[in-house]
């Protein structure tokens, strides 16, 4: 029925099956939209956040999706600026995933603030000392850049591309994409970093507080580095999931292995920096504020030392080693394991920087503030996942996202 819209030389499932898929994910989306409307019209009393716990699940989801969306800026940087040309076969998908992650982050922020209609005050009354101001500026600008990177992909739809104007527009946009990739890499460097700074500057919270270089705490650099290291893993993971669902190979192994190798080395160097940071923080910064590291992991029913081990060893050292070793990254099972561990690892890091930071009592007579999200918070966090899935379904069906697909899956008539 929609065969005129489907890219040349590739096969897609029946239209009815596609609609059924959309309807199922759409139902989840509607659940999220309902929860979102409740939060907007009834207020944030719909959440389980409280005055001791003003930053919770949403801020974690925000930091996590932005780290995972880091595959877009880093792949763009590698392809357009470093000259890794093989990555052109996966860059479209990386941009699409980045676009989904960043638009989701903006949506979550719009639900998270108490007065969404005043959000523009962040630009109008900007406090240049605040890391959140830097985040807002860079995030919005980078989302603009991602949109510009995404547009030529839409214009390459078979029917749209028939229009001469759109055809040439897409071509010309491709020609100058290096400029946008460079701008995106620059903006992303700053906002990934300032998201790290959001937690790192909290000198009233010794668990998150880090000393730093110039105006930036070390977490600024660690966040940028980790997004560059872990973001491509997420691109690879989503590619793998797409391949499993469609039952097709979509990207050649050499491309996947190259991205996995770069990601592995980035992760390896990042995790060494993270370990040094942790040792310095535990032995110098925290004691200078009156804290022993054990206090951050004791006297509560959830946060134990296991979380530090899970983040650094299982979410960092092990996946880095697997991806650095040629035998590891060439083995599909080992590679998949490393990618999954890495994605979990970076999510734990962002969780710890937001939720554990809020949970730890700072005044000695205070108690741990453990929290569980309300269903409205869960639904609004699932909402971007459903939105992303729908966007991927539509883009995969109608846009030439995977340039190698036709070659890897020759049509047999």
């Amino acid at each position, binding site marked *: 029925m929609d065969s005129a819209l489907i890219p040349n030389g590739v096969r897609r499932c029946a239209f009815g099956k596609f609609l059924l898929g959309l309807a199922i994910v759409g139902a989840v989306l509607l659940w999220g939209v309902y929860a979102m409307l409740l939060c907007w019209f009834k207020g944030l009393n719909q959440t389980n956040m409280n005055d001791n716990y*003003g930053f919770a699940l949403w801020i974690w989801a925000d930091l996590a999706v932005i780290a995972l969306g880091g595959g877009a800026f880093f792949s763009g940087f590698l392809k357009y600026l470093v000259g890794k040309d093989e990555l052109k076969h996966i860059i479209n998908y990386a941009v699409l995933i980045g676009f989904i992650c960043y638009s989701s982050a903006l949506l979550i922020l719009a639900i998270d*603030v108490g007065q969404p209609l*005043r959000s523009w*005050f962040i630009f109008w009354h900007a406090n240049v000392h605040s890391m959140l101001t830097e985040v807002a500026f860079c995030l919005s600008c980078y989302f603009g850049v991602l949109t510009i990177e995404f547009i030529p992909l839409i214009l390459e739809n078979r029917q749209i591309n028939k229009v001469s104007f759109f055809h040439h527009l897409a071509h010309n946009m491709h020609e100058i994409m290096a400029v946008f990739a460079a701008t995106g890499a620059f903006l992303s460097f700053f906002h990934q970093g300032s998201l790290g700074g959001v937690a790192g500057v909290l*000198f009233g919270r010794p668990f998150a507080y880090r000393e730093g270089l110039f105006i930036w705490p070390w977490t600024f650099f660690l966040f940028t580095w980790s997004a560059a290291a872990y973001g491509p893993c997420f691109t690879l993971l989503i590619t793998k999931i797409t391949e499993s669902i469609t039952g097709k190979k979509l990207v050649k192994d050499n491309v996947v292995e190259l991205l996995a190798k770069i990601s592995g080395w980035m992760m390896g160097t990042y995790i060494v920096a993270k370990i040094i940071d942790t040792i310095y923080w535990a032995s110098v910064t925290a004691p200078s504020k009156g804290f022993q590291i054990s206090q951050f992991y004791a006297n509560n029913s959830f946060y134990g030392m296991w979380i530090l081990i899970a983040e650094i060893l299982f979410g960092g050292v092990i996946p880095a080693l697997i991806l650095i070793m040629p035998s590891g990254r060439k083995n599909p099972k080992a590679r998949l394991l490393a990618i999954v561990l890495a994605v979990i690892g970076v999510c734990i890091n962002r969780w710890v920087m937001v939720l554990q930071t809020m949970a730890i009592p700072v005044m000695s*007579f205070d108690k741990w503030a453990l929290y569980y999200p309300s269903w409205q918070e869960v639904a609004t966090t699932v909402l971007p996942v459903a939105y992303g899935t729908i966007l991927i379904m539509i883009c995969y069906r109608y846009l030439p996202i995977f340039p190698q697909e036709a070659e890897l899956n020759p049509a047999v008539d």
Partner: protein
Amino acid sequence: MKNEQSHETTKKFGMVINLDLCTGCGSCMVACMAENNVPFKPDETDKLKSITWMRVYRLTNGKSFPETDICYLPRPCQHCEGHGGHSPCVSVCPATATDYDSQTGIVSQIYTRCFGCRYCMAACPYHARYFNWFDPVWPDGMEKYLNPNVSPRMRGVVEKCSFCYHRYQAAKDRAYVEGQREIEEGDYQTACTQACPAGAITFGDLNNPEHAVYKLKQDANAFRLLERLGTNPKVYYISSKEWVRRAADNYLPNEKTGK
């Protein structure tokens, strides 16, 4: 960000609370709520969503009877000066909705500019900031008793103790009318200071040697909450009990309080 005017003396309003005198009666909390139009909550069972600009903590030495000892610790906003005027909360607010006034040392909050991102709450280690999770509610008829000098706050913004700043404005106006004199000790008092039946709270200009707080803060048993974090609070406490002083700043087991 800072509004420096050289022709005005720099005051630093602050508080000294003598914990040896505090009986934990809660008058300061009630007075603060009434004075500052703090709303009630439809469901008061969830204490973590109710607003108490002044909150009295109950501290215990953790020993069993008969060695048990109790101390009550009233906690207003500490009006931190932080590093170079950057209190933990002020430096993080993206919309400059909260500010440190270098002429009074008061950390203010502009409710109509706050958009409720709650970053300031995350930054404040004293839990002194409160979010309006609900639309403000007062028991029937109570709207007639609202203080006309303090604006009520809407849902979705952050609020906190302002050291009853409106009383400072009124004191300044009075002093101006009475011959453009400087305001004197006692002209400007916070509601909790006035309400405390035990006289545990003293309020004044920490920079002025004539004011009681200036002398009291130099007491050998004076301390501030979480001093090592570098928040530089303008609320001082006095306690003759070593365990209370230790509780104030996460002392390690082998550390001395230095008093």
